[in-house]
Each structure stands twice: as C-alpha cells, then as structure tokens.
C-alpha cells in the first residue's frame, strides 16, 4: 500500500510548481497550464484522502473538479483569443495600461 503521505507530497509538489508557474511565467498559455496543475494537484489530494478514509466523497468532488477545470480552460482560451486578436501577443507582461 502506498502511504498517504506519498500522495500528499506529490500533490504538494505539483501545487507548488503550478503556483510558481503562475507567478513567474509570462506566456498566458503556460499560466493556464500551471492553473491546471494546481487544480489537478487538488484532485490528487482529494482522491488520496478519499481512498484513505474509504469514502467516496472526495472522488465525487474530483470528478466535478475535472469538469470545472475544463470549463475554466475554455473560458481562459476564449479570453486569450480576444487579446491575441487585438495585440498578436500572448505575453501577459504587455498588459500594462492600468497602473496605480
């Protein structure tokens, strides 16, 4: 049996990678991937805990999260297409019209 802590460690690493990715990367698509990483990290966590408790709740939530992630990706891609049509770039740093 794989101990629970292994799962949690993997998911934490994924989460942190995703977090750092969002904060550091400039390309919008990469940021979207990082977001997906974060959500999937949570998924792993949920499934692992669910297995640990022997309950099904966590896995049910997981399925819903997958759907939500898909929806988010769709919305995100739609928004970036709008940006791309205007400015031919996916670089987030170029969004600097509004400062203080």
């Amino acid at each position, binding site marked *: 049996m794989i101990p629970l802590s292994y799962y*949690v460690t993997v*998911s934490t690493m994924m*989460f942190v990678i*995703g977090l750092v990715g*969002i904060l550091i990367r400039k390309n*919008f698509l990469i*940021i979207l991937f990082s*977001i997906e990483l*974060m*959500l999937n*990290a*949570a998924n792993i*966590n*949920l499934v*692992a*805990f*669910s297995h*640990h*408790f022997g*309950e099904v*709740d*966590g896995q*049910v*939530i997981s399925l*819903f*999260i997958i759907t*939500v992630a898909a*929806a*988010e990706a769709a*919305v*995100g891609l*739609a*928004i*970036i297409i*709008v*940006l791309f*049509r*205007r*400015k031919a770039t996916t670089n*987030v740093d170029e*969004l600097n*019209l*509004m400062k*203080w």
Partner: protein
Amino acid sequence: MTPIMPDIQLIAIFPESILAIFACALFVMDPFIARDKKEQLGYFSLAGLCVSGVSTLFLWGKSISTFSGMIALDNYALFFKTLFLMISALIILMSIRYIKIERINLGEYYGLILFATIGMMFMPSATDLLSFYLSLELMSMSLYVLAAFMRKDPKSIEGGIKYFLTGVFSSGLILYGVAFLFGATGTTNLGEIAAFLQENGVTSSLSLIMAFVLLITGFGFKISAVPFHMWAPDVYEGSPTPVTAFLSAGSKAAAFSVMLRVFINAFALSSGNWWPVLWVIAVLTMTLGNLVALVQTNMKRLLAYSSIAHAGYLMIGLITASQIGYAAILIYLVGYVFMTLGAFTLIILLCSANMKGDQISDFKGLARTNPMLGLVFIIFALSLIGIPPSAGFVGKLYLFNSAIQGGFYWLAIIGILNSVVSLYYYFRVVQVMYMDEPNAGTVLSFSPTLKVALGITAFLTLFLGLYPEPIIKAAIDSVQIFL
C-alpha cells in the same frame, strides 16, 4: 432490490431552477432576435428575475436541508437570494442603455448575468464543500467573461485577463484548501466539519492549518482584502461599468455570504480564536483602501478602492464573531449594495457616444446643470461615509455596535478614523459636482430604465436609513441558524 430514493427536495432549488430555465430560454431565443432589439432579452431576463423573486418570498420561513446535506434553504439563504435578485435586476436596468452605447449589445450579456446570479444564489445555500465551490465557480466563470466583454477595448481585455488569472488562482487555492479540509476531517459537509472541530480542536493537525491558510488566502482574494486586493482596481476600471457594479456589489455580497457559512462552521469562528489574523487583515484593508482612494482621479478606480475599504469594515463583523456581528454584516451589505449600485449608475449616466465618463473631471458642475443628480450623489456619498440619515449609517452603527459589545474598541476607533478619511475623497467629488464650472458638451444618456434604477437605489438608501426595521429583523432572523 428497491432503488434507494435520493434525498432530493426540488423545492429547495426552485428559485434557481426558474432562473435557469429563463437563462436557457434566453440563449435559445437569442439568434432569433434582431440585432438592434436585444433589449427585449433584457426585459425578458427582468421578468425571469421577478418570477424568481416572487418564489423566494413565498419560501420565506422554510428550513430545509436537502441533496444529502449539500443545499440548505433557510432564512439566511433566502435573505441573500432576494438580495442577489434585486442586484441583478438593477444591473440589467443599468445595462440596457449602456451596452447599446458601447456597442456590446449582445444577448449573451443578459444570459451571463443570469447565470452569474444563479451561481450567486446557490452560494448562501451551500452547506457542503463541493456545493459552495461549484456555485463559486459558476458565478466566477460568468463574471470572467463579462469583465472582458468589451472585446474592442484594450482596458476591458486587460481587466478581463487580470480578473481571470487572479480568479482561477484563488479558486485553485480554495480548492486545495478544501482538499486538505476534507483530508483532515473526513467529511465534506460543513455541519459535520463543525462537529469534528468541536471535538478535536481547531489546530489539531497540520492539514487543518494548511486548509485554513489556503482558504483564508483564497477568500481574501475574492473579497479583495489586503494584501490580496491588487486585481480589484484594474478590473473595476477596465470592465464595462455595469459589470463593475455587479462585481462590486454582487460578487462581494456573495463571497461574504459564503464566508459566513464556511467560517462559522468549518473554522469554528464563534469560538473566538481567529480574531488576530482577521484583525490584521481587516485593519490593513480598511486603511489601505481609504488611503489610496484619496489620490485617485478615475471614478471607477476610486469606487474600487472604496469597495476594498468596505470589505474591511465588513470584516469587523467577522472578527467580533457574535450574533450581532453577523447580523451587522448582513445589514451593512444591504445598504452597501444599494449605495454602490447607485454610485455606479451615475457613472453610467455620463457614458455617451464620445466620452467614457469615468474620470472625476467628467463630473464637473454636474450638480449645477442637473440638481437632482447632485442631490442623489450626496445621498450616496453620505451613505458611503456613514453619515445619517442613510442606510450606510445604520450598517456602520451596527458594525461599530458589535465591535464595542465584543470589546474591540481599537477596531471601532480605526473604523471611525477611516470613515473620516473617506469623507475627504467622496466630498472631493461632491465639490467637483457643485463648485466647478460644468464641462461644455456633457451629454447625459438618460434612459427610462436608468432613471428607474437610480430612483430605486437613491430611495432605498435614504429610506433604509430612516426605517431600517424590516431589514434588521430579517437579518437577525437569518443569523439565528448560527446559534
């Protein structure tokens, strides 16, 4: 083998179902309506909101927990549902003329508002980790699209992207926190989590602490508390003004409605150990919001920072963690919604074919050409500062009352000092309206629906200040569930 009947009482989601039917019907009808007649869809969605509103009124007094404990229908939920329906109705009234001027007159706009409302309406009913997360996401998705709705305007796109990124980031944090909460307690039902925490104590395991940190951070983003507020001014400035109003009023009220349930149950807020962390956040939020608002020249940004400050005031109710504190949050939210929506309506009035209308200098001399508008803005300003007779004063009265009763004297004093500071920037706008020369060529885009929206918000802001009794009773009633 008899099939197990699932525990579903559809009556609990009746208002949302009605609204969902209207929303879907709207999307179906959309291709068949001529491009310049899309406001019919606006009226259609208003009708849907009214029907839904009537159904919530009929449901008052019920107390149901259904869908295996995921959805609860009680006075607390109904209070907020009614509030959200009113917010959406006012937003649609405000939008009809605006989106024509900004040439985003699409049927999807109304549909998205309806979906966002459905999401918001589910939020106060959510008594399970999954249901609150899903409803939060439903509302947020619709709002991401709405924020970027003006596709040709670079500021709107920028605002939309920033909102999207911060929004999904915070949703990710919340989700991870949910995962840990589940892992620590073994259940997703908020009530059962509360029972678990009572037995085992709030800091009994590392997972719990992680969960709390993540959840506070995530929610902090949603209500634009400091230091998670960076997105708010840009998003508020860039989005179409009715969407900004929706974000400012609706999304904040919805976030607070969920926070109350989650914090009180899942965090055992009433046990009183949370106040140091929340105290720091609240004080920072109030102070920074007010101080930065002092230097703004863009009206929408000013209102963004002011709404950040108001989130700080609302957190006072959370800190005091008492019945009266929770009731104070509800009462203040009602007043806050109307005064904010009213202030945004004034900005929309200034938006016309050749002018965006969101700079403070666009307001010059407005009260001299149009005294009614001046008077109306004074009512909103007084309410935002917290000067009687206005709904904002009653809300602040209750909040400070709860702070004093809880013994948080310094919090009350800081709240007061911040109110004094806020006087300065609101009255700077009043000053511009009354004492500067009017701009030549300022065209006010009045429309009947806009007048109705302005009238309703101004009237309610004043009326609830003079006769707040029904709201107070309803609020106190609603928080009985947290006893």
